[in-house]
């Protein structure tokens, strides 16, 4: 990526790239060119040339075999028994060398095919890692999965067998013609030539018809994946609301659509005219050669050799039948991959940006924000400043924009207007990796990988077992982890499903503690934890908090109380900010959060705030 010139850069922002990994999609927007770039890259070039050459040679060997067989029969008719051994040896060597050559050819072809699958998937995956969060917000996971596995696999089939079969079949269309011209009366080339001509025309119209159906099948398959994925992830909801029937029905509709496309494809394939053409050609050319024979211009042996050569056409005819579907599928697959890869995303890793240790001053200057593709202003004119080591508490009703505000700091999304400065430098001027690695974020919606506990805790940073235990203790997670049968090596299922809610949150806390960030963001991160455990965690946070900038979102007064700055958000606007004392006295909205809850009256709160 770094090698690209400026113009490309503007269009192809990514948040993440791998040095030395290829991004062929950038310069090759057309599916065919993209695939070609993959096939022709590096040592693949050599492989494909060898495949090409050996294919042609093998086809020539097979055709030569036919001629030799005809000649052999001719010489038997002439009762020439000395030639018998000569022909036997010649036929044997021709007959064996072609398959041997094919073995090598196939192996190389397979390597090419599997490499294409591997490399294309890699390119796609890296590209997706580099896409911004707002891009991922718009995607369906099931669909992305289908693209990464199945569409990519189609590219594999494209090379093996499709492309190599096409090369092989076209050489076996042309080489017999050449051989006919070389060894037999030239007018014998007439029927086969007409045949090839009509075959190509019929093939074209066939391909045109089969194309859309094949694409439809692909799309249906993607949808099948989406539905299935969704119903499996929502399985507990389906069960508790007894909607199995409905989900089964949804899936049934999709597989029915797939079946219909499949049958339609069968119908089109049934009308594959070239089979008829081939049969007719065989009959007519037999007639032709017999006529020539009756004029004495060819021998019986030559008729046999001629028919043998024509039998080479069987291969391209039968292959074209399905090979072009594969090509269409691969084309459609490549299109679907490129469609995603070439979608623009908003955020760029900014390799030229600053990488530096931050101290943790955060300043919002008139920040406004809407989520991409939506016009709703989620945040409006947000301005505030906290200094390194201070604590900011965000409070406000549900959906007021608290979580969104914190996501802007790590550039999960970029501000729409205004700017965010860290240590006086716009966040957009930092190298993304440097910025994000110094900010730790405990999300409200905890996500854990279906790994071992230890891998989850050390996700943000490679670390020793001791360190992991240390942070687990801080997050009050050590005790329950040790009580599991496999301790830190326990697997926890998708999204940590095998843990209780509070246990998941504590692992997320430990994960964030481990990276030792300059800025710590805690988004409602103790909501599922009982007060006693929370007390302990709070102590740990207090310790960690020292010399760190902390942003907390919580509804627990104990955590809000001592924040250096409290911001009250309402519908994306700051309606009050200041310290607890100040707000209790001056902000009715802030008071409202606590009044009802503790049956305290407003007056009492006011006086207490002053204590």
């Amino acid at each position, binding site marked *: 990526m770094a090698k690209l010139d400026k113009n490309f850069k503007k269009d192809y922002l990514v948040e993440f790239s791998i040095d030395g990994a290829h991004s062929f999609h950038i310069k090759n927007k057309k599916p065919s060119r993209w695939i070609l770039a993959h096939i022709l890259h590096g040592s693949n070039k050599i492989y494909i040339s060898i495949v090409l050459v050996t294919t042609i040679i093998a086809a020539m060997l097979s055709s030569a075999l036919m001629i030799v*067989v005809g000649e*052999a*029969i001719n010489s038997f*008719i002439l009762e020439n028994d000395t030639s018998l051994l000569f022909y036997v040896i010649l036929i*044997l060597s021709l007959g064996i060398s072609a*398959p041997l050559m094919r073995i090598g050819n196939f192996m190389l*072809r397979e390597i090419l095919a599997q*490499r294409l699958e*591997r490399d294309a*998937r890699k390119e796609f*995956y890296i590209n997706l*890692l580099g896409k911004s969060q707002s891009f991922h917000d718009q995607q369906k996971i*099931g669909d992305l*999965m289908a693209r990464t*596995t199945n569409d990519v696999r189609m590219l594999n089939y494209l090379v093996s067998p499709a492309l190599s079969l096409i090369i092989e079949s076209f050489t076996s269309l042309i080489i017999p013609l050449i051989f006919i011209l070389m060894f037999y009366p030239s007018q014998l080339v007439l029927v086969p030539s007409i045949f090839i001509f009509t075959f190509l025309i019929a093939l074209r119209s066939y391909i045109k018809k089969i194309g859309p159906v094949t694409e439809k099948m692909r799309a249906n398959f993607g949808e099948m994946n989406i539905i*299935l*994925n969704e119903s499996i*992830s*929502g399985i*507990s909801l389906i*069960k*508790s*609301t*007894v909607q*199995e029937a409905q989900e*089964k029905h949804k899936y049934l509709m999709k*597989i029915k659509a797939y079946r219909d496309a499949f049958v339609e494809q*069968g119908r089109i394939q*049934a009308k594959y005219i070239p*089979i*008829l053409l081939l049969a007719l050609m065989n*009959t007519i050319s037999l007639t032709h050669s017999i006529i020539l024979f009756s004029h004495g211009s060819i021998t019986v042996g030559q*008729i*046999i050799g001629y*028919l043998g050569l024509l*039998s080479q056409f069987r291969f391209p005819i039968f292959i074209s039948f399905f090979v072009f579907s594969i090509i269409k599928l691969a084309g459609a697959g490549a299109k679907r991959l490129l469609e995603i890869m070439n979608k623009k995303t908003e955020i760029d890793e900014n390799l030229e940006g600053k990488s530096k240790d931050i101290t943790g001053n955060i300043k919002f200057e008139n920040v406004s924000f809407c989520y991409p593709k939506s*016009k*709703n202003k989620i945040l409006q004119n947000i301005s505030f400043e906290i200094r390194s080591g201070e604590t900011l508490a965000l409070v406000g009703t*549900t959906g007021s924009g*608290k979580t969104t505000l914190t996501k802007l700091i790590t550039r*999960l999304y970029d501000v729409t207007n205004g700017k965010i400065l860290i240590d006086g430098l716009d966040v957009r001027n930092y190298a993304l990796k440097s910025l*994000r690695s110094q*900010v730790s974020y405990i999300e409200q919606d905890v*996500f854990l990988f279906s*790994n*071992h506990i230890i891998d989850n805790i050390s996700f943000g940073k490679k670390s020793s077992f001791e360190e992991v235990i240390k942070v687990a203790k801080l997050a009050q997670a050590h005790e329950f982890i040790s009580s599991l049968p496999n301790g830190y090596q326990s697997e926890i299922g998708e*999204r940590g*499903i*095998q*843990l*209780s809610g509070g246990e998941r949150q*504590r692992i997320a806390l430990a994960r964030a503690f481990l990276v030792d960030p300059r800025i710590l963001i805690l988004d*409602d991160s103790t909501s599922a934890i*009982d007060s*006693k455990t929370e007390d302990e965690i709070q102590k740990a946070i207090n310790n960690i908090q020292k010399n760190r900038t902390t942003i907390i979102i919580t509804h627990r007064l*104990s955590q809000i*109380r001592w924040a250096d700055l409290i911001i009250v958000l309402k519908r994306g606007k700051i309606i009050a900010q200041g310290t607890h004392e100040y707000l209790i006295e001056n902000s009715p909205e802030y008071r409202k*959060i606590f009044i009802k*809850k503790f049956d305290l009256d407003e007056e009492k709160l006011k006086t207490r705030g002053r*204590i």
Partner: protein
Amino acid sequence: MAFIGLEAEKYDRIYQDRDLFRRIIGYFKNYKKKIIAITLLLTISSLIHAILPILITIAINSLEISTNIENFIIIILIMLSFNFLGFLINYFQQIKTSEAIGNVILDIRKDANNSVLNHDLSFFDQNPSGKIVSRINTDSQDFGRTMELLMEVISSCFVVVVFTIIMFFLNIFLSFIFMIIIPSFFIVAILFMKAARRRTILGQRAIASVNAFVKETYSGIQIAKTFSQEEKLFKEFEQVNNQSYKVNLKRAFLFNIIFPSLGIIQAFVLVLLIYFGGIDILKGTISIGNLNLFIQGTWLLTFPLFTIAAFWPQLQAGLASAERIFALIDTNPKVIQTDNIKPTKLKGKIEFKNLTFEYEEDKKVFENFSLTINPGESIAIVGHTGAGKSSLANLLARFYEFQAGDILIDDISIRQFDLSKYRKKIGIIPQTPFLWADTIENNIKYCCKNAEKEDITNALNQTGGAEWIEDLPNGLETYIRERGSLLSMGQRQLTVFSRVLLENPSILILDEATASIDPFTETRIQEALEKIMKGRTSIIIAHRLWTIRHVDRIIVLDHGKIVEEGNHQALISKGGIYANLYNTYFRHQSLDYIEKVRDL
């Protein structure tokens, strides 16, 4: 790494080929008429295929004797009409075949999906969804491809048989030579067979691993970004991807060796035919046309014989797929009903009787747990995290099977109820709210399709008002993506809450239903909730102890045991664990305490 595994899933099993075939035939039985038609058409078209070369032989043979033009014309005309007839029959056969196979794949997918949806949650705890999906969708496709091949094989067999019979009529010796081809093809094929099946299974598992891995990446992308760990994920991805590359390359190598090796056999047979045929011609014991038929036979029968021979390894691949799907279909859910009592209305008495439960062996969540909840009673369950609160809810919803003891609902064992009728009576708000990638409206009325707009607004009003919805770009029509990730956490909980209210269940279970909702909205929900809870059994699980002061009874759970119970007042005055918990909690919200805490 959970993904790298090429090992079998827990539910995988090995089937006898005989059983597999029986099952597969079972699927085709539903399309008996089509199958009969296909077989008939196949037979005819194979006959035509075999007759054409014989006509050619006759033509060539007669070249030696005379040049009677009329004979030729007749032969040519017959050949032409067979050409057209062959095409026509092939046309119908193709259509029927794709219909039959399309439908069989459909049926298999349907069965697999049905069986997966019938599993209890322990199945999904253990099997990554990516792998399940790959099994249902991709393996069935591979299986279908094999079935297409099967049809071709049947027709190839016809051609081979007819052709062989004719050859025997013409020349027995050459026929025997020709016959060498068949056993040697099969020996090669069978040698490949075993390896092929093993490698195919490995290949499929490798791709399923890739599937599962990318799924995790895409679901956890935000975490990867915030921790700036894309590179780490990438490295792991490289491992699974390269593994898939290696495994599948090996598999492909194997599959690609088979065709050329058959070609070599074919060359040997051809040479033998030329040698002995040549001698015969020299001796004058065979006509040229007949020898030509044998020679043509090695090419004409190449395709059919290749198909038949190559079919074995490919069949293995197909059987491997079938085996994987059948294993999925045949795994029984652990939660089963022993009777099918259909409750019309539940009074709501719940009794846990000496209950023992564990998710996995040796990690008991409950042991000898007993608790009775009276009809219409509202109880709260509190306790440290991991005490087993959510597990109680899971058991009541019949998501997991318990190991010993019993759960009685209205004095009937929970196992005896018709699962779906029973679950309809239970409304549960799980700790982690789940929403569909759909609009808010459709999510709320997920279980009550016919709900009117009015009912929806009503439900929303009960959960603190619908104002937040009006703030959204498209109101109720707003699309909220998988798991509702386009909504704030609190909004997700409110949506789930409304959904359950609309369901109007007899037993209501709220598992931290308002944990992420701000106090202000929560108080409003609280008021509505008190009304809703009247007259139905409700179980509330909460860490925010303030929200449960008004319930009839509070149960304090500790490591799966009840350590205290009673109402708020009683427990507070008892001064035990609950009082302690409550005080800690209250202290968090008490200004007096907070003022002091700074000095700690």
